[in-house]
């Protein structure tokens, strides 16, 4: 996916657990259903953590990519 497809971009680089999950959820809560959130994180656990949170909250993880130690998540808000 491309950055331009995101409605909101959240920078969690340099933050550690629990903050990337907490901030990502806060961002999802402030968005409209159907919108796309892009999150960037460097926490090594973020891939597993954010994936779990998105699934548990009934939202959709469209894509995760890893490049130069940065994870980029594309999340679609469902609910």
């Amino acid at each position, binding site marked *: 996916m491309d950055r331009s497809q995101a409605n909101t971009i959240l920078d969690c680089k340099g933050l550690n657990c629990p903050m990337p999950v*907490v901030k990502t959820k806060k961002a999802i809560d402030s968005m409209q259903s159907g919108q796309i959130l892009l999150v960037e994180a460097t926490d090594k656990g973020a891939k597993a953590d954010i994936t779990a949170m998105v699934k548990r*909250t009934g939202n959709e993880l469209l894509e995760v990519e890893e490049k130069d130690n940065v994870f980029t998540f594309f999340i679609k808000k469902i609910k």
Partner: protein
Amino acid sequence: MGEKKKRMAIIASKGTLDMAYPPLILASTAAAMDVEVGIFFTLYGVDIVNKKKNHSLKVAPIANPAMPSPIPFPNILGVLPGMTPMATMMMKSMIKKINWPTIPELLNTCIEAGVRMIACTPTLEMTGVNKDDLVGGVEVAGAGDFLDFALDADISLFV
């Protein structure tokens, strides 16, 4: 995702800086995962929600052989004056290095996310701490109230 929210009940019984983090990290994460969370603060754990104390929680090096040290250091020397402030300073600098929020900041995150916080009444009575000394939003109750919440919990933890 179902109709009924999952629930987590935690007892926080420790009042050191290191042990204040686990219950709050789990609570803030669970709340972000749409889990209903309640933390029951008891004994030393009440310090975590005590406004006068929660920004100056300490780490004890004595009897804590896992405490990292820049130089090899016999644990018994932790009794020396100044060792607790030194260990606390080291822990705070490690916390800062990984960009962790402070305990008051993390508490605030939990409260904003709707985590229910309960301070144990006998502990308050015993230590002379008033409800006014507690962070706003903290309720006071005893074991019966916690158990009533925990009996319907999917996860129960004692920290």
